[in-house]
């Protein structure tokens, strides 16, 4: 079960060396620097290992909209809840998703009233449930970025049973980066991009982005020293006035990505303008299932319409926290009305949600 190189990637001595270089380069740059990551797992690593406490105060690392659970619109959850109320239906989804508050109730609350809502580890488990329960409709509530899309695409391609369908709420990362660059007040100096997304899509979509917006970008792994090295690589680019996409996670990410997975995505899904919770509609920000596979599209199979939904409840600042405009402890509900037990907004739910991570690992003033 050994992961090769894990010792170095989590070594305190190695971290010390990287921090030393970071401190030297920030001195050369001579001004405060704002970096942003767009991945809940990166925020998790940064907070879990206390990396911000190691960085010089001139470097600010913001948390962007990278938690797939958080940016899933309330209307999609409402849809799953409505379908889950039917007697003949089993709703399946990933663990984090069931606790996310929606317009009225969450899937966990629906489950507690007796509905059949099950946590699965992947769509293949949902297919298995569908085969074991031919008299029931088994709906997989599919969320996530490019990392999870191919899994669902593969199952849809592989002739699943006719009592299986998918609520497709997938989103795409590169579109979100562009949106962030258009928010002029953010003034980001560099992006830490998610390694697992790149494993699928490769470097190309990012290269176009970093060239187009003239912004440094590093594809990063998820161990503490991956993130520290990525910060160092970004600072070097800032100092040298470069704007490339560099691959720190080269032990996993190939420049061309995973071609087979890309083909599956292309074949089963098509990109559309899509709403992100609290952020708004993003051009090419999401996916729908192509006409060819419509028999597995729960949207078309059941025609559930959600008239009115509520993404951000009154007082909640998730929409500002998700784009790095506010830190969780600057929200007036944080640790008061809003806690992981009684989350008001979506960012307080998942272990990848910025507020939930701050609640777990940080004090109120971030000291």
């Amino acid at each position, binding site marked *: 079960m050994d992961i090769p190189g894990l010792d170095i990637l989590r*070594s305190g001595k190695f971290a010390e060396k990287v921090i030393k270089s970071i401190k030297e380069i920030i001195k050369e740059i001579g001004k405060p620097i704002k970096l942003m990551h767009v991945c809940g797992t990166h925020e998790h690593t940064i907070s*879990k290992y*206390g990396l911000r*406490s190691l960085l010089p105060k001139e470097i600010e690392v913001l948390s962007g909209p990278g938690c797939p659970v958080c940016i899933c619109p309330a209307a999609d959850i409402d849809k799953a809840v409505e379908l889950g109320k039917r007697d003949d239906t089993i709703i399946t989804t*990933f663990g984090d998703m069931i606790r996310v508050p929606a317009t009225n109730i969450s899937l966990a609350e629906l489950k*507690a009233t*007796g509905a059949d809502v099950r*946590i699965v580890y992947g769509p293949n488990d949902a297919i298995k449930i569908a085969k074991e329960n031919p008299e029931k409709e088994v709906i997989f509530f599919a969320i996530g970025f490019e990392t999870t899309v191919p899994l669902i695409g593969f199952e849809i391609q592989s002739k699943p049973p006719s009592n299986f369908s998918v609520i497709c709420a997938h989103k795409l990362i590169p579109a979100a980066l562009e949106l962030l660059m258009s928010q002029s007040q953010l003034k980001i100096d560099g992006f830490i991009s998610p390694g*697992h997304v790149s494993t699928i899509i490769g470097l190309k979509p990012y290269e176009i982005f970093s060239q187009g917006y003239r912004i440094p970008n590093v594809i990063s792994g998820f161990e503490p020293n991956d993130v520290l090295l990525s910060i160092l690589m970004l600072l070097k680019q800032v100092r040298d006035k470069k704007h490339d996409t560099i691959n720190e996670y080269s032990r996993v990410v190939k420049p061309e990505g995973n071609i087979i997975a890309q083909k599956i995505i292309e074949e089963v899904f098509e990109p559309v303008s899509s709403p992100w919770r609290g952020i708004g509609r993003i051009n090419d920000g999401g996916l729908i299932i192509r006409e060819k596979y419509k028999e597995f599209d729960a949207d078309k199979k059941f025609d559930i319409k959600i008239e009115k939904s509520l993404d951000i409840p009154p007082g909640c600042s998730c929409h500002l926290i998700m784009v790095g405009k506010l830190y969780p402890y600057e929200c007036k509900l944080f640790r008061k009305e809003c806690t992981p037990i009684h989350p008001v907004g979506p960012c307080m739910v998942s272990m990848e949600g910025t507020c939930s991570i701050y609640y777990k690992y940080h*004090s109120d003033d971030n000291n």
Partner: protein
Amino acid sequence: MSLKKESSNVIRLAHGAGGILQEELIKFITKDIPFKKVNNGIGVEELDDGATIPLINYEKEIVITADGHTIYPLFFPGGDLGTLSVCGTVNDIIMMGAEPLALTSMIIIEEGFEFNQLEKIVSSMNAMAEKANIAIIAGDTKVMPRGTLNELIIATTGIGIKDKNIKILDNNIKTGDKIILTGSIGDHGTALMASREGLNISTDLKSDLSLLLELYHVLKSDINNNYIHAMKDPTRGGIAAALNDWAVKSNISLWIEEENVPIKKQVTAICDMLGLDPYNIACEGRALLAVDPKYAQNILEKIKSTQIGRGAQIIGKVKADNPKRVFLKTIVGGTRFVDMPLGEPIPRIC
């Protein structure tokens, strides 16, 4: 089912998982109990591992613990429900600094449960009781209609005895104390998760389920001299729940060095894969001790001399500043909080 009530006003699974929600549930149940203690002993309000009944005119007091045991699957790598129910009960008594004497056992069985399965579980109970040198002195059985419970539940009461002057309590930790952990964390919960259907993780990892009786024997003099201020077996909620509980009840802060917290490679790998934190995952054969710093090294050596404590380490210390909080110095040198776990650990998505 079309008339399901849309309300969050029901008990959820997470209410039983050892985190903040469970605390809320316990408070809800216990708040109106009319008499909460006997002879000024430890009662239900302390929410410790067990309660005490001081015997008037004697030096001794009776220690009583209550435990309900459910587990899925019933048989898991390293034990079964029978072993678990005896170990869990005996360990709770020992964590109060008491000598285990006897237990009672209530077995609730689902209609249709097979006799040969029951036999295996009962014989594991008996074997473990013999090892622990503890009598099973009373019990009860109930059979419930199929579908009203899942296979089998065992509820036990543990009875022990100790000197009145021994004070090993969650609220008794003092500034300067050292924290000792007797072995690697997360083995039990991780082995169980890996053995569950649907995960397809093959590993040689076993539950750490074991009796902590050896600890009681080697530490008897330290217990009697009150060098040990608190003991706790970090079951549901893992060491994160146990340490936070201590920090709050003793009004101190705990400073843990991640580098010194023993975790098996398999546990790290499986938890990384599932997005779980080993600090939140249950152990069934480990103990945390808060001890007088003068005797910490000596106590550590004694623990290391036992079969169950070979991997013991001093993992941290107690301070007065920032009370009610647990801090962790991470392996790369950063500092962060360790928070009370919320509820049942849920594997993540990506």
